[in-house]
C-alpha cells in the first residue's frame, strides 16, 4: 500500500469516520487516532436528527436554496456562504447515503423516510432514527470503517491522545504526535495530510451537554502552534437541558418538534403540581411572543427567553433552582414512545420522573461551539465549492485540515438544530477528494522527504512535557481548577454577556492558567495515568477559553448566540405610522452600520501567552444580510424598509453595470 | 480446554451442539417418555406391565443392537458432550438472580444428577452388560442387574425393596424430568421455534405442563414399584407363562 499517502485523522466522530471511509474508498490508507473507541465518540449523543430538503418539503415550496437560506439566516449571516450552499445542496445526498448504509431512520408507513420539524425553519426537513439519530449515524459509519479495517486500509489507534501536529521548516504539517493512553508511550505519525475532527470544546465550561471527550484539547494544540481559530466567541447554549450534578443532559429540540410546549405558571413558584395548574394560569411565553415559530424559535432566542423568564422575571418553577416546564403530557404515550423514546428514557432514568405523565423541568446549557479552527474554501463558479480542491477545509497550515464541529465555517453565529450532523458528515465526505488532490500535488513528500529527526524531536518535546508534569509538585488540584474554570466561563460567556464581566473573567482565567501550570499530579504511575492526561487537557483549555472571552469582549453587538444587552437592537416604539417609518429607517441605518463593523469573522491567533484578535470578511455574495427579526416589535415595517433598500441597491448595481 | 480432543470439539462445535440438542429429544428424550409410560403401567398390575415388557423384548436378538444404537450410545454421546458443555460455562446464578439463569444452572445440575442416576439405575436393574461372566461375578454379587424381563414386575418390585432406592429414584426422576422439560424449552429457542419473548413465555408454560405430566407418570411408576408385592407378581407372571405355553 502506498504508505507515503497515509493520512492521519484525529477523531472518529461523524466527521472523522466519514472522512476515513471516503479516503479508503479513494485508496488512501488512514491512521485513525481517538481518545476512545471511535464508536463511543460524542456524536452518539446527538438525538434529534439531520436536515435536508426532501421530496415532501419540496412540494410545499422548499428547496436546497431555502435550506441554505434558513441556515445562513439562522446563523445571522456570519458563515462563509459557499461552503454552506454546497452543504445544503449535498444534504439530500448525504441522507440518501446514510440510508443506504443501513441507518434505521424512522419510516412512513409506505416505507419512505419520515421527517420532523426542527427549530429555525418552517419545513419538516429533519430525518431521524427515534431519538438517537447521532448514535445510528455514527454506528453506520463505524461499521464502514471497520469494514475497511479488515481490509487493512485503516489502522485504529483508540485510547490515544493527539498531542500536536508536526510541522516542518516550511511550516507544513507532516504528521502528528500522539500518546497511547494505556502504555503512556508517545509516537509520531508521519502523514501526507493530517485531518483534525476532534469535535467540540464543551468541557471548557465545566458542565455542558457534551461528552467528556469534548475538551477541545486537539484544537487547542493546533491553535497553539499557529493555526487560526475562527469565531471563538460563538457558543451555542441549548435552551432545554436537564440540570445534573455531573452533566447537563440534553433534552432534544425534537421534544418541541413533536409538539412539546414550554411554559411557566403565571404565579411565581406556584406550589401546585403542574398538571393541576389550569391552562389560563400558564404562561406559554414562547408561543405568545413568537406566534409564527412558537416553541420552535431558533435556539439562541429560546435560550434567552427561558433565561430571561427565570432570571429577570423571576418565574422559575422552583425557588432555589432555575427551570421551566417542557410539557409533552398532551401527546399520546404510544406516539411519544415511538418518536422520542430514547430521550424520554434519559429523563426518566436520571430524574426518576416519567415525562409522559409530568412536565419536565429544563434549563439552558452549553451545547455547541460554532467557532473552531479556521479553514479555507475554494469557491466554484456557481457559488458553491470547487470539488476536489485542496484548499477546502484546509487550515492556514498547509497539510492540516479540520472538519466537523471543530471547524468554524458552517454555522456562523448560531447553529440550526439538526444541521451539525449534516455539516460533520458532509465535510468528512467532501474533504476526501480534496486531500487526494493535495497528496497528488505534493507527491506524498511530507512523508518521504521529512527527516526522521524532525519526528524524533517532536516526540521528545512531548516526552519532556509529560515528564515535567509528572514531576511537578505545585500543589494545585487539576480537578478543582477545572471546576473553577467552568464556573467562570459559564457565568461570563454564555447566554448574556457584559463587558465588565468578560474583563474580570479574563483576569481570572489568566490566574487559573498560571495555577494550572503548577498542578500536582496525584498519580505518578507510568501506566494508564488518567491524571496526567486530564491535566494536560486542562492546561490546553486555557488558550481556547481566552480566545472565547477575548472574542466576546471585542464584539460589541448582538449576533446569534452572542448577546450583549447593551448593544441589543431595540424594538420600535413609535405608534404614529410616519414616525414609525422614520424609526424603522434609523433602525436599518444602525443595522447596516453595525454590519459594516461586525459582520466579520473573528480570527484568533495565539501569540504564546494570549490570543491576538483580528477580523476577516465574510463571503455574503449569495444571500445579502438582512435583519434577523424573530419576534421584534415593528418587524413588519423594518422588513419593508429593508426590502425597499435592497431593491434600490439592486437597481443601482444593474444601472451601473449597463 | 486444550489438547487434541477438545480442539476436535471446537472445530465441529456447531454440528456437535446441534446433535447434542437433538439427541436430548430424539432418541433420549423420546425413550425416556416411552420408558416412563411403560413403567407406569405397572400400576395396572403385573400382567399389564409384563405384556408391555414382552412387546419390547419381542425384538429378540435385535434388542441388543437396538438398545445400543438408540439408547446407550445416544445417552453416552449426550452425556459426554453435556459434561463438556457444562465445563465450558460458569454459572453465576448467585450474582444474577434471574429465573432464566436459575433454569440454566439447574439444567446443568440436573444433567450431572442424570448421569449419576442413569448409570447407577441401569447398573441396578439392567446390569450394563448381559455377558454371563459379568453378571455372575460382578453385577449380581453387588446387588445389581436385578431385572428379569420374563419376570418384569416381580424382579422390579423386588429390586426396589431396599429403602435407599425409592428416594434415589425420586431424585433421579425429578432431575431427568426437569432436565427434559426445560431442555424442550431451550431447544425451542436453539432451533428457533419460539422466538419472541412472549412466545418463549408461552412455551415455558407448555413445557412446564409437559414436565408435570411426565413427572406424574414417573411418580406413578415409582409408586407402583412400591405397592407391587413381588410374590404376588411372580404368581401372575407364572400364570402368564403357563397360559402362553398352553397356546403353543
Amino acid at each position: 500500500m502506498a504508505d507515503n499517502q497515509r493520512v492521519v485523522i484525529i477523531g472518529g466522530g461523524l466527521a472523522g469516520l466519514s472522512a476515513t471511509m471516503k479516503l479508503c474508498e479513494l485508496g488512501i490508507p488512514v491512521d485513525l487516532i481517538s481518545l476512545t473507541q471511535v464508536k463511543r465518540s460524542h456524536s452518539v449523543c446527538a438525538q434529534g436528527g439531520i436536515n435536508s430538503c426532501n421530496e415532501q418539503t419540496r412540494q410545499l415550496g422548499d428547496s436546497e436554496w431555502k435550506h441554505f437560506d434558513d441556515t445562513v439566516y439562522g446563523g445571522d449571516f456570519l458563515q462563509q456562504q459557499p461552503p454552506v450552499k454546497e452543504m445544503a445542496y449535498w444534504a439530500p445526498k448525504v441522507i440518501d447515503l446514510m440510508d443506504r448504509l443501513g441507518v434505521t431512520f424512522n419510516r412512513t408507513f409506505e416505507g419512505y423516510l419520515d421527517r420532523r420539524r426542527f427549530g429555525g425553519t418552517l419545513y419538516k426537513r429533519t430525518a431521524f432514527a427515534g431519538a438517537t439519530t447521532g448514535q445510528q449515524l455514527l454506528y453506520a459509519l463505524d461499521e464502514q470503517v471497520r469494514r475497511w479495517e479488515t481490509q487493512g486500509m485503516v489502522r485504529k489507534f483508540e485510547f490515544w491522545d493527539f498531542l500536536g501536529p508536526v510541522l516542518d521548516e516550511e511550516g507544513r504539517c507532516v504528521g502528528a504526535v500522539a500518546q497511547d493512553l494505556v502504555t503512556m508511550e508517545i509516537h509520531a505519525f508521519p502523514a501526507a495530510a493530517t485531518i483534525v475532527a476532534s469535535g467540540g470544546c464543551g468541557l471548557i465550561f465545566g458542565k455542558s451537554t457534551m461528552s467528556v471527550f469534548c475538551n477541545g484539547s486537539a484544537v487547542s494544540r493546533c491553535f497553539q502552534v499557529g493555526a487560526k481559530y475562527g469565531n471563538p466567541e460563538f457558543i451555542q447554549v441549548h435552551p432545554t437541558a436537564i440540570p445534573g450534578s455531573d452533566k447537563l443532559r440534553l433534552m432534544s429540540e425534537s421534544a418541541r418538534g413533536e409538539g412539546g410546549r414550554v411554559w411557566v405558571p403565571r404565579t411565581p413558584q406556584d406550589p401546585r403540581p403542574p398538571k393541576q395548574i389550569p391552562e389560563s394560569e400558564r404562561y406559554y411565553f414562547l408561543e405568545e411572543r413568537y406566534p409564527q415559530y412558537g416553541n420552535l424559535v431558533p435556539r439562541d432566542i429560546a435560550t434567552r427567553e427561558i433565561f430571561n423568564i427565570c432570571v429577570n422575571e423571576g418565574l422559575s418553577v422552583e425557588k432555589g433552582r432555575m427551570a421551566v416546564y417542557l410539557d409533552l403530557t398532551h401527546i399520546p404515550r404510544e406516539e411519544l414512545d415511538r418518536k422520542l423514546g430514547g430521550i424520554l428514557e434519559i429523563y426518566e432514568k436520571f430524574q426518576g420522573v416519567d415525562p409522559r405523565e409530568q412536565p419536565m423541568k429544563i434549563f439552558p446549557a452549553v451545547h455547541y461551539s460554532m467557532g473552531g479552527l479556521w479553514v479555507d474554501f475554494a469557491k466554484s463558479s456557481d457559488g458553491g465549492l470547487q470539488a476536489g480542491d485542496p484548499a477546502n477545509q484546509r487550515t492556514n497550515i498547509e497539510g492540516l485540515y479540520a472538519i466537523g464541529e471543530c471547524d468554524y465555517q458552517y454555522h456562523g453565529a448560531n447553529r440550526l438544530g439538526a444541521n451539525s450532523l449534516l455539516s460533520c458528515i458532509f465535510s468528512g465526505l467532501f474533504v476526501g477528494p480534496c486531500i487526494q488532490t493535495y497528496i497528488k500535488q505534493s507527491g506524498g513528500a511530507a512523508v518521504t522527504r521529512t527527516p526522521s529527526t524532525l519526528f524524533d524531536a517532536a516526540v521528545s518535546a512531548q516526552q519532556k512535557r509529560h515528564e515535567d508534569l509528572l514531576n511537578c509538585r505545585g500543589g494545585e488540584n487539576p480537578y478543582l481548577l477545572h471546576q473553577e474554570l467552568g464556573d467562570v466561563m459559564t457565568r461570563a460567556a454564555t447566554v448574556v454577556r457584559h463587558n465588565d464581566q468578560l474583563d474580570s473573567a479574563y483576569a481570572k482565567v489568566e490566574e487559573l492558567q498560571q495555577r494550572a501550570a503548577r498542578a500536582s499530579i496525584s498519580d505518578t504511575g507510568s501506566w494508564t495515568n488518567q491524571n496526567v492526561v486530564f491535566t494536560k487537557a486542562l492546561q490546553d483549555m486555557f488558550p481556547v477559553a481566552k480566545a472565547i472571552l477575548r472574542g466576546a469582549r471585542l464584539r460589541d453587538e448582538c449576533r446569534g448566540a452572542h448577546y450583549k444587552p447593551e448593544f441589543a437592537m431595540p424594538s420600535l416604539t413609535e405608534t404614529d405610522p410616519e414616525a414609525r417609518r422614520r424609526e424603522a429607517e434609523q433602525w436599518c441605518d444602525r443595522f447596516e452600520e453595525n454590519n459594516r463593523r461586525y459582520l466579520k469573522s473573528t480570527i484568533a491567533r495565539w501569540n504564546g501567552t494570549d490570543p491576538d484578535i483580528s477580523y476577516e470578511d465574510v463571503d455574503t455574495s449569495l444571500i445579502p444580510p438582512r435583519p434577523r427579526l424573530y419576534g421584534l416589535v415593528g418587524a413588519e415595517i423594518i422588513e419593508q424598509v429593508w426590502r425597499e433598500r435592497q431593491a434600490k441597491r439592486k437597481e443601482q448595481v444593474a444601472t451601473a453595470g449597463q | 480446554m486444550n489438547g487434541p480432543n477438545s480442539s476436535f470439539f471446537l472445530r465441529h462445535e456447531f454440528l456437535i451442539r446441534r446433535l447434542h440438542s437433538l439427541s436430548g429429544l430424539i432418541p433420549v428424550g423420546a425413550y425416556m417418555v416411552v420408558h416412563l409410560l411403560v413403567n407406569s403401567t405397572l400400576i395396572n398390575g403385573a400382567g399389564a406391565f409384563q405384556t408391555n415388557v414382552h412387546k419390547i423384548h419381542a425384538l429378540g436378538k435385535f434388542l441388543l443392537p437396538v438398545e445400543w444404537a438408540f439408547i446407550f450410545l445416544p445417552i453416552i454421546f449426550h452425556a459426554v458432550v453435556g459434561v463438556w458443555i457444562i465445563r465450558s460455562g460458569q454459572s453465576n446464578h448467585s450474582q444474577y438472580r434471574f429465573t432464566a439463569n436459575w433454569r440454566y444452572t439447574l439444567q446443568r445440575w440436573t444433567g450431572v444428577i442424570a448421569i449419576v442416576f442413569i448409570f447407577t439405575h441401569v447398573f441396578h436393574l439392567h446390569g450394563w452388560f448381559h455377558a454371563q461372566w459379568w453378571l455372575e461375578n460382578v453385577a449380581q454379587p453387588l446387588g445389581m442387574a436385578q431385572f428379569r424381563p420374563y419376570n418384569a414386575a416381580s424382579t422390579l418390585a423386588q429390586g426396589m425393596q431396599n429403602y435407599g432406592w425409592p428416594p434415589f429414584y425420586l431424585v433421579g426422576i425429578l432431575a431427568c424430568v426437569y432436565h427434559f422439560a426445560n431442555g424442550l424449552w431451550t431447544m425451542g429457542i436453539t432451533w428457533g421455534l419460539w422466538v419472541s419473548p412472549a412466545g418463549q413465555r408461552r412455551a415455558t408454560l407448555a413445557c412446564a405442563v409437559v414436565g408435570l405430566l411426565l413427572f406424574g407418570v414417573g411418580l406413578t411408576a415409582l409408586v407402583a414399584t412400591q405397592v407391587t408385592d413381588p410374590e404376588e407378581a411372580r404368581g401372575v407372571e407364572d400364570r402368564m407363562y403357563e397360559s402362553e405355553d398352553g397356546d403353543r
Partner: protein
Amino acid sequence: MSAPTPANPSSPAHPTKVNVRVLRQDGPGQPAYWERHQVDYEENMNVISVLQKIAAQAQTVDGKKVAPVAWECGCLEEVCGSCTMVINGRVRQSCSALVDSLLAENATEIELRPMEKYPVIRDLVVDRSRLFHALKRLQAWVPVDTYGHLGPGPRINRPQQEEMYPLSKCMSCGCCMDACPQYQKIELQRRPGESDEQYQRRKEAAYEQGFVGAAPISQVVLFNSHPTGKSIADGRLDALTETGGIQVCGNAQNCVAVCPKDIPLTKSIARAGRAATLHSIKRFLEK
C-alpha cells in the same frame, strides 16, 4: 432513621457520607485489592460523580494518599457504553447508576468492580477489544458499492424498521457478555520481545476460539434483515456457525436481563439460531 429512603430524595434520612469499596488493580497480571473510600452525599448523585469526587480527593477513607481510581466514561447519559462496570455485583453503566437506588440495594456501601469477562487494564478500565473483533468476524456492516450518490436506500416499511431499530441501538457496552455464563474471559499476557502486531494477532486468534456473545449475534440478525445487508448473509452465518458461534449460547438469558438498551437479545438469538441451522443444512447439501 436508619436506612435511606430513595423514594423520597428530599427526606432527611439520607446519609451524609457514602462508603465506596473499589476493587483496584495496578495493571494487567497484577494482584487485585480492595480499597475503601468515602465521599460526601449529594442529591441526584450517580456513580460517576462519586468517582469524580474520589479522583479529586485522591485519598482513602483512612487518609492514605492514593492515585485516583482509573475508570472510563464518555457521554454520561448511557449512550456510549464507556462507563460499564460491576456495581453492587451487577454489570451496568456507572453514569446511570444513581446512588440513591444503589443505597436502597445495600445501605452500607457501594461496591465497584471492573467487568469480569474482560482483561483489566487498570482499576475499572478493561480491554473490550474482543467485542469489536467479533463485529469484524461477523461482517456487521452493509456492503455498499460506493459512497458516491446512487439515490436513496431500499424502501423499508415501518414494521420492518420497528424490528430493526431496537437492534441498532447496541452500544457495545459488553454488559450482555459480562453477565453471560457461557462467555469466558480471554486474557493473554504479552510475551517479552513480542511486537505490537504479533501480540495483536495472537489476541485475535484467541478471540476467534471464544464465544462471540449475544450483542454480535444480534447484529447479525440486524444486518441479515437489511435488504442490502442480506447480500452477505451467508458469510455472516458461516461465521456464526464456526468455533465460538451461536451454538455456545446456553439460553441463560442474563444477556437480555442486563442489557441497558432493552435489546431483544434472546429473540435475536432464536432467530439467528434458526437461520444458522437452516444455513448449515443448506451448506451440507450443497457442498
